[in-house]
């Protein structure tokens, strides 16, 4: 733990992320105003002592909306990471432990999924089951699968050549046991770093999908949905777009800094360009 905080960027990124997360969590039990409270006479207020960030076109309190939206963004991105890890990591480990046809299949599968950017998956899912936050989760989650499969396979391959894995094999462990007992624990740090990166990408993707109407739907709110609501109004009321957008940027920067710091703290050798910074 002490080693982790020897890296200032990690501490800053982690603390900032936790603050945003806390804001999101608080919104579950308390917001300054109820987010669904529509009050037309008080709409388009600038920042006032009562409404710190002003109100939107329906007179809803912007601060409350940002708090609730932050929670949605975190939730969508986190569940998408869980999906990506849950499917991708076993695939990647299997590829490394079994090799041969299994590895070939996993690699082809991840190539295949890479051909479906999240937007396309979201289009298909929305056509299928109608719009909603679960679509965004599914679309981003599917996109995360090959990312984690590759990271897990790559990490596991470098571990698999080490002596303790050979010792495990001599002791009679089968491929599944090798993957579970020896490979997985040794790639956890890689997975955590990648998870942080995919969290920030997920938050960006959620914003994009909700913005074009394929993600979160009212009465739920998300930072992307706030930007969608602002679309027709922002030329006259710029704050409606500046506030939620800034929230997204700050959260993503916090996560990225935490991710970079984590990578340096865990393994300085990993200080390489990461090809998965693509959204």
């Amino acid at each position, binding site marked *: 733990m002490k080693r982790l905080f020897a890296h200032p960027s990690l501490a800053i990124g982690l603390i900032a992320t936790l603050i945003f997360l806390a804001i999101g969590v608080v919104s579950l039990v308390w917001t300054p105003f109820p987010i669904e409270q529509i009050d037309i006479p008080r709409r388009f207020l600038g920042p006032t002592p009562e409404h710190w960030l002003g109100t939107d076109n329906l007179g809803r309190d912007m601060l409350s909306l940002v708090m609730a939206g932050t929670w949605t963004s975190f939730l969508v991105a986190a569940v998408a990471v869980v999906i990506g890890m849950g499917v991708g990591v076993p695939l990647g480990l299997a590829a490394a432990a079994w090799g041969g046809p299994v590895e070939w299949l996993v690699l082809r599968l991840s190539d295949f999924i890479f051909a*479906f950017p999240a937007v396309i998956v979201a289009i298909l899912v929305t056509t299928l089951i109608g719009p909603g936050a679960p679509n965004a989760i599914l679309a981003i989650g599917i996109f995360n699968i090959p990312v984690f499969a590759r990271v897990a396979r790559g990490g596991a391959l470098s571990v698999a050549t080490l002596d303790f894995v050979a010792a495990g094999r001599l002791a009679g462990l089968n491929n599944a046991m090798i993957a579970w007992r020896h490979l997985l624990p040794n790639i956890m740090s890689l997975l955590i770093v990648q998870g942080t990166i995919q969290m920030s990408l997920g938050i960006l993707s959620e914003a994009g999908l909700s913005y074009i109407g394929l993600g979160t739907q009212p009465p739920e709110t998300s930072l992307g949905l706030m930007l969608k609501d602002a679309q027709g109004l922002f030329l006259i009321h710029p704050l409606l777009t500046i506030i939620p957008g800034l929230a997204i*940027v700050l959260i993503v920067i916090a996560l990225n800094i935490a991710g970079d710091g984590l990578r340096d703290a865990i393994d300085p050798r990993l200080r390489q360009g990461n*090809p998965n*910074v693509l959204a």
Partner: protein
Amino acid sequence: MILFALRRFLGFAVTLLVAALVIFWLLDLLPGDPAQFILGINATPESVARLRLQMGLDTPAPERFIAWIWGMLGGDFGMSYTQRAPVGELIWGRLGVTLPLAIFAMVISVAVGLPLGILAARRRGKALDTAVMVVAQTGIAIPNFWFGMLLTLLFAVVLRWLPPGGFTPWHENPGLAFRGLILPSLALALPQASILARVMRTALVDVTSQDYIRTARAKGLTMGEAVWRHGVRNALLPVLTILGLQFAYLVAGTIIVENVFYLPGLGKLIYTAILERDLILVRGATIILILAVTATMLVTDIAYALVDPRLRERSAS
């Protein structure tokens, strides 16, 4: 090399075919009868049955799938039943916005990202490096469509230099059409340029510590010459892969950004098609997008192998 290209092409064709199968299967699962949807709930069962027959909905799914693939090979993507026009024509018309937008964005991000990355690598650890990396870190965190909104505020509202949105077709006024795409392509380019700058910097820093740079220095080149002649060319290899991926995702990204500027691109077409349950149109548009993504990756792979023979040999074995 030809063998390598052939193998990659085969992979590309298989990917496309499987993607088509997935799309077809997914959209076929959709509850509700498209014929019923078009005619409305007051339609008589006879007229629905007639339309089903006309749309070929009564033939078995495998037959319809093969007919769809066969039609696309001949450029026939089917008829949109809400717009009463060939899907191929509708998509082709929209690509006139989407493709130039993606290409402009790519050109801008290369023109900005690569030099900045090289500059940062050459001044590693100095103030300039830090500045470039801070800007890049921020650029990556900014959603491109939100940046588009900010650009509109600045250039259309405050400065009044450019139109806030809308699009004049190319054949009416190419100048105006181009002006309409400036802000959207800048918006799309920002995150891409930031990523490129970071990747370029890392690749060049990596390459600079290689033996051949030391050799080049030993034979009397200055550090600048050595990096320029030997380093940049080698560092471009990883950058090339990223470029291919980026272009693929740029095409998909235009769908979101065109919303900000009210551009009549593919995204608008797809969105309306989803709302109106125009499955043939959704099917055609998604397969075109996937074609764009996979074709870009194919070209990147082949280009990569052309410049780096090591890769060819490795993947051939």
